[in-house]
């Protein structure tokens, strides 16, 4: 698609994304990325994670800064509540991924966004993680995301926008589909 004289500005560089898609299709090894985080136990259920580097474009890459995350459980679980729970971080990841997708697809489709707010909820019966009922799973029973979007577009266009953002979302895929996970001792 060629975008000409497009006055829409959502802060997404669509031409750069399209250029990357073309360049990475030509050099597929550069498209192989590895994302990383390091997590250190503090005390009790409290841990501290950092994110700084990742591998991609055939080289080691650095974020502009080291990003830090405290993870803990709330006081009702007899913890100190030094940060969000791990499952809330998953929700943050999913909402962030879908929102980035909404902005990118909107830019690509020429839709000017004024505001986007995603409210995300994950329902869970904690009898699963407590090991109290073998028929209840550990993870979410269901996740609901509600997007409030103020934009120059019809409701149908906005529905298409959030549908496409799910289709191209890495975290949506990670959550919705099985992934091979290997956990081992160093």
């Amino acid at each position, binding site marked *: *698609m060629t975008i000409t004289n497009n006055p829409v500005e959502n802060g997404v560089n669509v031409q750069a994304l399209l250029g990357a898609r073309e360049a990475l299709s030509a050099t597929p090894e550069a498209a192989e990325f590895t994302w990383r985080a390091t997590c250190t136990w503090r005390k009790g259920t409290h841990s501290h994670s950092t994110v700084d580097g990742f591998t991609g474009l055939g080289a080691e890459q650095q974020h502009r800064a080291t990003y830090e995350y405290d993870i803990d459980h709330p006081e009702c679980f007899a913890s100190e509540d030094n940060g969000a729970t791990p499952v809330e971080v998953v929700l943050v990841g999913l909402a962030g991924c879908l929102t980035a997708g909404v902005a990118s697809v909107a830019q690509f489709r020429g839709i000017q966004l004024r505001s986007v707010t995603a409210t995300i909820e994950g329902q869970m019966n904690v009898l699963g993680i407590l090991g109290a009922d073998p028929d209840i799973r550990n993870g979410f029973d269901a996740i609901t995301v509600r997007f409030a979007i103020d934009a120059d577009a019809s409701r*149908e266009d906005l529905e298409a926008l959030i*549908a496409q953002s799910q289709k191209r979302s890495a975290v949506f*895929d990670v959550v*919705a*589909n099985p992934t091979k996970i290997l956990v081992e001792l160093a």
Partner: protein
Amino acid sequence: MQTTAVIVGAGHAGLAMSRRLTERSIDHVVLERGEVANSWRTQRWPSLRLLTPNWQTRLPGRDYTGDDPDGFMPVADLVAALTDYARLAGVPVRTGTTVQTLRAGPHGFQIRANDDLVCARTVVLATGACARPVIPATADAIPPSVTTLTPLAYRDPGQLPDGGVLVVGASATGVQLAAEIHRSGRPVTLAAGEHVRLPRSYRGRDIFWWLEATGLLAERYDEIDDLTRARHLPSPQLTGTPEAVMTDLNSLTALGIRLVGRLGRVVDGVAQFSGGLANTCALADLKMNRFLTRADQWATASGLDHELPPAHRFAPTRVDPGTPLELDLTSGEITTVLWATGFRPDHSWLDLPVRDRTGHIRHDGGVVTGAPGLYLLGMPVLRTRASTYIHGAAADTGALAGHLHSFLDGH
């Protein structure tokens, strides 16, 4: 043996190309591993009918002349029609001739077939897009107590054991077989990934009438925004039936078929399905409605609104909020898994450096890249969106025969 052109495959595309070469007096032979229309004879289930209406099932020099232009041709009738076409056009077919290798030769190409050598300046690959089933890697994890089969081996529900059937894939093949198998008394669970929803008819006209009239099928490969995507689009959820019924997911769940998400993998005998089903269905509904809007706009612009029934929209696809994410394949509930997960061509005998990193032949509208004199036919969106369907071969073979002729003249 020496000839100017070899066509590999005597299906509709190979036969149409032969007629084009004959029109240009280009000496050629068609090599066919079985008989004319071999895949249609041996690798399609008997109840299958073409998805395209009879009026559209035309080949170069042959329009449909039967008495049911709006019907859908049973496979047996198509086999008869193609056999007839080959005979009337005097197509030089060598049946029972399996090509073993195709490689570069001193004056073009060398083909080994039935242990004989054929030398040709040009070769046309017309062995079809659906030569082999695509089966996901997780198939290896299906418990041995469960029967598995592909559509190429499927004939009718009677060959399946009694009990539940998991049909994996909800494109044309999957929806069609899901309905047929469910009606045989074997409860079907249908795993649906990305799919293309289209109504069988809209405002009193078959959907292929709309696809043709609006110009969609005529869109050229070099004018399509995302050609890779267009070429890998799943086949639409359509069935050719005498009653011309719609076979979307709503009609299947109304029959009692259980809908689940895309099959992810099978772990310890348990099949896991994607939780993204609702979005997959929403995308298909949106895409269908975009086409219907385009169709309505075309009808208005063409002044046809007073001749056609009014515009309307179909009910959104219903997804049960309680859709299971897992199914235990060891419980005995499911006795058969049917892989309706797509097809791919078989060019394994091609010994030429013409493939991309994913194994697909690189080509520019059927002109194979890096092997002058080599042509490809019968692939989805080869030159236009119509290339996917039988009638698309007429324009494709016309253009490629012209290219082939110029190539020979340039030598």
